[in-house]
């Protein structure tokens, strides 16, 4: 390949957009987090006081706990369910394409529409879910309306919405696995479980880890389905870090404090990703 001195210009537009879209905001958010600034008033430099305030207050730790509670449960359920469905549908010869098409539909639905659909379905008195439960003699809970059931309801909603993602990717990965190892396992008389444990799972592992990372980052950033259903209630039971950052900036107009929340949370996500890179020796440069 002959060296091409003009090639640098190819990356320039993307770098300009990336710098404007991520580099500037990151630096500016860092600076904002050191200010006491309510939109419309005079900004005052306060050093780390915002950080002390959010970490010693009750709102942020609670939101952090809620967010991790949501993320861990949702990721575990969606990964296991997606894997199970992918394994089952992998055995289907006729109609698999149609099944996949129908199953990715929830993924196409906007988070706000997902919220409204489930708000209607989970309504304690008029919702179809409690009606169907009453048919089999179960008195359904008030789902999004009580403290102990609100977050599990949000987890259930996210499971309906996003399991298609884990399913589709694991499904594609399963389809592209080589046939020989399975042939060998069959000839050695391995049980289906042994085949899964020693052949399928090791080969799926890289994809499985990738799916888990993607879902972890996405669930930690959860906003839409909480904003659209409970708005963080009842009694802050479903307040996530991002809904808290929204409230702080656009309802209380405390821009400095909101920036501090976003900065701390970004560092937590970054730390998690670095942890993953340390654990996983592969540097993601397979392409």
């Amino acid at each position, binding site marked *: 390949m002959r060296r091409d001195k003009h090639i640098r210009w190819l990356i320039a537009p993307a770098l300009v957009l990336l710098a404007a879209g991520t580099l500037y905001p990151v630096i500016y*958010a860092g600076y904002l987090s050191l200010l006491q600034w309510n939109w419309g008033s005079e900004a005052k430099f306060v050093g780390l006081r915002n950080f002390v305030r959010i970490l010693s207050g009750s709102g942020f730790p609670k939101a952090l706990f809620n967010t991790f509670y949501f993320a861990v449960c949702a990721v575990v359920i969606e990964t296991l369910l997606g894997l199970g469905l992918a394994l089952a549908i992998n055995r289907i010869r006729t109609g698999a394409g149609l099944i996949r098409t129908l199953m990715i539909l929830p993924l196409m639905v906007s988070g706000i529409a997902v919220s409204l659909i489930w708000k209607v*379905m989970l309504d304690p008195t008029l919702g179809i879910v409690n009606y169907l439960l009453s048919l089999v003699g179960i008195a359904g809970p008030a789902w999004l309306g009580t403290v102990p059931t609100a977050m599990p309801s949000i987890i259930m909603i996210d499971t309906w919405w996003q399991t298609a993602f884990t399913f*589709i990717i694991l499904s594609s990965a399963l389809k592209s696995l080589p046939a020989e190892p399975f042939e060998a396992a069959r000839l050695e008389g391995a049980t289906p479980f042994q085949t899964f444990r020693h052949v399928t799972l090791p080969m799926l592992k890289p994809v499985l880890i990738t799916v888990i990372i993607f879902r972890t980052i996405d669930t930690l950033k959860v906003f839409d389905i909480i904003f659209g259903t409970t708005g963080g209630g009842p009694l802050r039971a479903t307040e996530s870090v991002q809904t808290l950052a929204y409230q702080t900036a656009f309802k209380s107009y405390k821009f400095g404090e909101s*920036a501090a929340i976003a900065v701390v949370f970004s560092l937590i996500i970054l730390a998690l990703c670095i942890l993953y890179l340390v654990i996983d020796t592969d540097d993601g440069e397979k*392409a």
Partner: protein
Amino acid sequence: MTPSASARRALWPYAVAVLAVAVSLFPIFWILTIALKTRFDAFAMPPVWFFSPVWENFGRAWSSTGFSGAFLNSLIVCAIGNVLALAAGIPAAYYLNRRNVPGRRTILIWLLISYMLPEFLFIVPMYVLFQSIGLYDTVIGLALIYQVFTLPFTIWLLRAFFADIPEALAEAARLEGAGTLRIVWTIYVPIAAPGIAATVILNAIKMWNELTIALALTFEKAQTVTLAVAGFRGYASIDWGAMSAASIIIILPMALFAILAQRRIVQGLSLGAVK
């Protein structure tokens, strides 16, 4: 093994699939029925399963304040956002596809980090910036800020598609005196066209459905369809019929995408996650 036992064994994946499809589709189907019922039927308990559909809810949703304008805004944002992402992303993907170009690794890590950042880290700074330069509450501003996620995604995917194109093709064109831009435009873009289509569709879906950023950076003039739908919740007496109809209106275009371009979407999602 008796024939019936083996038949049962062959059938269980179908049972799982039918159940999964039913659970996936029922909520969408249910909201569609509510959108097509009269107010009286929608609130009936036990639910009315057989009814003659009425269209008035769709009329009320569509003509409610700002809804049709928001629909148009979202279409424009999807179009501009995709044009920007392709204009900057295609050359960038070609660049990053080449070995030993300066800054390659740094840029790739940067792309991953921008995907990781929680929206509110850049929303607040962008709000301040947009207020001062007049981009707040404009579709252009929204399409620009959407590059935070569309551009990394576009570059990431196209790089994977470009990687499958043999370098000998570019070499041959270069010997005939074609410049880099012409090589990208006449060789890489046509061959990777299916991949580019997948990218455009996935970007459109993401931008069409986006709520968080639009909520903070638009107000009224540039409000998107997600915000118009969000407007239906939170009144003292919720108009369930219109709310359901609005949800169906926002779901429909993307559902059609999914059905018409299922293979492309799956290919794009898988490539994005695995490479």
